[in-house]
Structure formats: C-alpha cells, structure tokens
C-alpha cells in the first residue's frame, strides 16, 4: 500500500549555504555575460557585413536602455572575471621559480592585474588613435 519514500537529501540551492561556493557560483556565472556580450558583438559583425543601413540600425539599437543596463552589468561582471582569473592564476599555472625561490601568489596575481590594466589602456589608446 505504502509507496516507498526514501529520504533524498535536498540539494536545491546547496551552494547558498557556504560563502565559498556563493563566490564560486558568481565567478562561474560571469560566463553568461561573456557569452551574451560575444553574441552582441557577433550580431554587430553580421550587421556590418550586410551594409551601412544594417550597421546603423545595430548601432542605434545599442542606445536602448535595456542594452545600456546590460552593458553596465556586463562591465561589472567581466571586471570581476578579470579579478578572479588572475586571483586563481597561481593555482592554474605551473609554479614559476625565480632565483631558486617560488614566485609568491601575490606577485602572479598582481602582475596579471597590472598587465590587464596596461592592455585596457593600450586598447583605449589604440581605438582613440584610429578614430582620429
């Protein structure tokens, strides 16, 4: 008569109970913003290949407040991706030995963030230079 009802430990939202996994889910979640942004760029590239009118329509659509809001969120999410990418880099790359001593974690993370900042500024300067 009785249906068997074995206890199944509920797993829904398990990661919300531990700050470590909350952070983990957030930094993995940045992938959605990377994917969506790539999708927007891909749409723009296709519109560019279709001619001037199509390109102008795509460019105008970016002024939609929804797109603006998305890009603010994407800026925050992808910046956070940059931070975590270099934060976990000491564990994702082989140990670097300089002068017989292992390069400390903060040097790898700090070096990576410095390179990212330089790359961003170089990109901005390059775009600025090409536009003028």
């Amino acid at each position: 008569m009785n249906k068997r009802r074995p206890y199944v430990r509920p797993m829904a939202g398990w990661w919300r109970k531990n700050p470590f996994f909350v952070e983990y889910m957030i930094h993995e979640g940045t992938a959605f913003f990377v994917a969506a942004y790539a999708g927007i760029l891909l749409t723009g590239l296709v519109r560019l290949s279709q001619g001037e009118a199509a390109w102008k329509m795509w460019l105008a659509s970016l002024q939609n407040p929804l797109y603006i809001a998305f890009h603010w969120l994407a800026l925050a999410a992808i910046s956070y991706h940059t931070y975590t990418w270099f934060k976990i880099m000491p564990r994702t790359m082989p140990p670097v030995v300089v002068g017989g001593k292992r390069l400390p974690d903060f040097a790898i993370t700090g070096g990576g963030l410095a390179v990212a900042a330089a790359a961003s500024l170089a990109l901005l300067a390059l775009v600025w230079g090409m536009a003028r």
Partner: protein
Amino acid sequence: MKPGLKRSNAPIFWALFGAGGMLSALFGPMLVLITGLAIPLGFLLPPDTMSYANMLAFAQNLIGKGFIFAIISLFLWHAAHRIFHSLHDIGIHAGLLAKLVCYGSAMLGTLIAAYALLAIGF
C-alpha cells in the same frame, strides 16, 4: 600510447577555455566600456569612432579581422566550457546533449563570425 586507448579531447576545450578566459580578462572590460557604453552614450571617444566607414576598414584589415575573430570565437568557447562544467552544480545533468548545446553553439558562433568576416572581404 597503448593501442585502443582513446586520446582525450579535453585539452582542446581546455585550451580554448583558457585562451578565451585570458583574452576576456585582458580586454573584456574595456571592450564593453567602449562598444556598449562610451559609444552609445557618447562619452570618452569621438562620436564617429564606430562609424560604418571606420568599422568596415577595421574589419577589412587583416589584423582587425583576426582581432574580431579571436574576440568573438574565444569568448564563446570560454563561456561554453565554463557553463558546461557548472551545469552539474545547479542540478542539470552534464551529458552528451548538454555538451552538444554548449560547444555546438560556440562552434556555430565561430562559423558565423568566420562567414561574416569573409563576406566583408579584404
């Protein structure tokens, strides 16, 4: 390698994930700021920075082409790999179907980007 042992394809996906992760870490925030905020809202850069003539010239240039292709395709491969490996954590079975959807959409995006870049010409 022993005969009959299949070589894993994981390193290929991991390399694409790593390359896309590095590229998006280095240029992602500034690209979003330029294309998604500065140009539409009209600050930081000259208003005609992304005019049709400018962008067409950029996309016809070999280096520009390579940059556009690398950014779009590697961003997609990075995200596909990361989302695929997070599916299990949110209770979705990461089976063959999930793999096809994740990596398949990255492949599709890569092909569309390549086609559009070729259509734009040199």
